[in-house]
């Protein structure tokens, strides 16, 4: 994927990855090495997502079975390296023990999985008990959870152990060191012979196991796939995941959630306002008040798009979106200024890289699938006159390309260059008198909190050109910026309005 680790962290993607709780090391391995689906893999993605939904639907009716299979999976160890070593040569006794443990566990897991699968009907996941391989290692047929080569397994072993036992019994009776020494020497000789025979038995066992290794590995793989699916289903259940409809180049998201931000707000006893937005090919612009959550909206879009390509259900009430070929964010606070560039310079360099990655810009090849480009307050670091010109031009350019671009901006006149324009509801519907009263009661440093509690973080679609936004001025007024400055701002606003007319 095209997002750096810091960006994944920033949009809340690492947070949901960390929230995935697998029970087995095989599931954990899938979380550690997440697979991102490419546009041509949409059928595989859909099958994967359907499996998650099927698990979600059966979590309640099969709660007991899920609980049981989770406990069984928790006891597994990752022994894929031992299995790989078995291809090459004989395993040692601890490796054979661990393999036997796994095989025993597969016999316990398989029937519980079958019960679950009778309801869930998962596609492409089948956990089979590895009974034939187990029969090889269950040397005494006791199904014991330990590994020991019994006397009965080999004539030589039986003979050596019998002789050794006699020496050991003599040793128990022996009193003095002079009596013990020759016995100890004899015992050492027999122990070496026993060891050699055990080694031969282990080599033969490893040899016999070889035809079953592929089956054992696919069993581990299936457990990993099921475990990972279950973890994603539990995550979706916790934060409200939904089966998306995959589109070519339109995005319609209703009530999207960003789990990381939602949890952080909940800790402060506040609620996350779900984000609903539509976007298509070209540029979509989000404008609105400071503190209004434009960046949160952008992060939430990025998170859900990225979650989808990582095989997770989007966190929303309803989701229609493409499987993007790439997701890119340009945000000043995430740019690396180590390259000796100013933050503005770094932003431009990064934007160029993004265009190239999307198959745009000079000399780029034809891209496969549609890319998403998210620009958070692009060019905010430069002077406002030029900044506005740059963003307008960038918006016009992106609007012509085969990409889905979403921009947040403060600058004037950008929205009319875009296909779609959203604005944060912000303080539009606020009862100014009431808020002013609340601020008066609160301590000076709590003023911003009071405003935040009245801020409507929802987005609304702007269909006609509306007058100059007033939210920033409202905030200044509520937070009691000096009257002299406020009066001056209003005079200026009046002048600008007259000039426009």
């Amino acid at each position: 994927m095209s997002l750096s680790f810091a960006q994944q962290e920033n949009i809340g993607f690492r947070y949901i990855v960390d929230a995935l709780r697998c029970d087995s090391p095989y599931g954990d391995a899938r979380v550690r090495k997440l697979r991102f689906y490419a546009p041509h893999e949409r059928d595989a993605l859909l099958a994967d997502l359907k499996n998650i939904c099927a698990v979600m639907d059966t979590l309640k009716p099969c709660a007991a079975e899920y609980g049981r299979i989770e406990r069984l999976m928790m006891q597994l160890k990752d022994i894929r390296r031992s299995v790989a070593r078995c291809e090459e040569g004989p395993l040692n006794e601890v490796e054979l023990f661990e393999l036997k443990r796994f095989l025993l566990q597969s016999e316990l897991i398989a029937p519980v999985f079958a019960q679950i699968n009778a309801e869930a009907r998962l596609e492409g996941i089948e956990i089979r008990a590895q009974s034939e391989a187990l029969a090889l290692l269950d040397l005494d047929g006791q199904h014991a959870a330990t590994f020991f080569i019994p006397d009965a397994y080999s004539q030589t072993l039986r003979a050596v152990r019998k002789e050794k036992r006699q020496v050991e019994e003599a040793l128990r009776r022996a009193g003095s060191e002079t009596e013990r020494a020759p016995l100890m020497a004899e015992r050492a000789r027999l122990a070496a012979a026993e060891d050699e025979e055990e080694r031969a038995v282990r080599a033969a066992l490893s040899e016999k196991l070889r035809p079953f290794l592929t089956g054992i590995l696919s069993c581990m793989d299936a457990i990993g796939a099921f475990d990972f699916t279950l973890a994603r289903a539990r995550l979706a259940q916790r934060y409200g995941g939904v089966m998306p409809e995959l589109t070519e180049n339109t995005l319609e998201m209703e009530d999207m959630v960003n789990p990381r931000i939602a949890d952080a707000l909940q800790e402060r006893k506040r609620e996350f306002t779900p984000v609903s937005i539509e976007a298509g090919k070209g540029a979509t612009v989000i404008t609105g008040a400071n503190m209004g959550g434009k960046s949160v909206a952008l992060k939430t879009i990025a998170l859900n798009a990225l979650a989808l390509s990582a095989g997770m259900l989007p966190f929303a009430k309803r989701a229609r979106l493409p499987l993007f070929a790439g997701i890119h964010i340009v945000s000043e606070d995430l740019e690396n200024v180590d390259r000796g560039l100013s933050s503005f310079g770094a932003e431009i360099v990064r934007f160029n890289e993004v265009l190239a990655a999307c198959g745009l810009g000079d000399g780029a090849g034809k891209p496969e699938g549609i890319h998403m480009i998210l620009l958070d307050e692009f060019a905010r670091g430069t002077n406002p006159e030029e900044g506005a010109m740059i963003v307008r031009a960038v918006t016009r350019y992106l609007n012509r390309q085969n990409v889905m671009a979403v921009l947040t901006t403060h600058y004037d006149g950008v929205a009319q260059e875009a296909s779609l324009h959203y604005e944060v509801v912000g303080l539009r519907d606020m009862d100014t008198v009431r808020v002013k009263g609340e601020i008066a009661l609160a301590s000076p440093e709590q003023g911003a909190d009071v405003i935040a509690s009245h801020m409507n973080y929802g987005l609304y679609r702007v269909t006609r050109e509306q007058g100059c936004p007033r939210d920033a001025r409202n905030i200044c007024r509520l937070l009691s910026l000096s009257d002299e400055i406020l009066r001056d701002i209003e005079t200026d606003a009046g002048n600008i309005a007259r000039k426009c007319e």
Partner: protein
Amino acid sequence: MLLLPLIEPYRSLSIIGMCKNAGKTTVLNSILSEMGTTGKTLGLTSIGRDGESVDVVTQTHKPGIYVREGTLIATALEMLKYCDISREIVETTGFPTPLGEVVLVRARSDGNVQLAGPSITAQLAKLSGMFFSLGADVAIVDGALSRKTLCAPAVSEATILCTGASYSRDIDTVIEDTAFATLLLTLPEQADFSEEERAACPGKALFRMEDGTLRALPQELQLADALRSQAYAGVRAVYVAGAVTDALLKPVLMAGKRFDELTLSAEDGSKLLIHQDTYDKLLLRGISLAVARATRVAAITVNPFSAYGFDLDKEELRSRMQARVRVPVINVLEDLNLEDMAWRADDRARIAAREEAEQNADHSHCCGNEEITL
């Protein structure tokens, strides 16, 4: 049958040494052999590595550990090849050591084992639990070089302390230092702080004031600063959450203040890492030491023979040691009579050769210092 009656009441036991070659393995073998006749199942491990037939530090002969059939052993993967018992692999623990993961093995025959268990106290405590759930009646942890943390009550209910001529050429030093170690291990239990209070201790120390109130040592203050300040004038007892060291107590003593019956307690005897000198000064200043959880020392064993080529008088050592402590004192080689002494000539020749090579090395007190650093 000398050790058995002394250790019979305990379910878990540790064996610690004042130094190397104090006779720990001899004691362990004696226990293994005595217990073998009782039909009890033993769980056996060590802290770190032990059980080599030649001591890796001093290159002297060491008796191997010989277990009975049925014994459970926890040792590192790499050590299994040196265990010539018939092995049944019972469990893997996930505890890593430099010699591989610690594995639980059941001895399906008598034989020699080499132990290399975990060196983390919490893992040793967990291992004991695993032994018991697998059917062991008694768990024994063999200590490596002066690992006193072993005798922490969390790991074992009782301890056997091994000492001997290898500790020092000077019999007085052997006896005094061993008696002092025993004294620290067997300090009385404190009664000033409840288990809940200790568990919730927010900082480095707790104070019980004369009026019964509880106060914690503020993060920015050192123990000595607090004890010197007027604000803590009414302290009746102090509990130190971590290790009690000479470095911690020196500033307290330097303050020159005289306390009136102040009790200073640590979690258990393994947390007291102080010299006799410090201890004596504490007493003079009116500070007495105590522990939250007392250790039982089941026995002290003495080994009059040194690996470094000199012997102490066996009867003098045993009887003088016994006169200094209330714990039973046993002479390992004499009373337990397990090994004959044929290997000793070899060892001495080897050591003489080496000592010649390392003329500057002073072996007279080679292990006494390690005692303190742990």
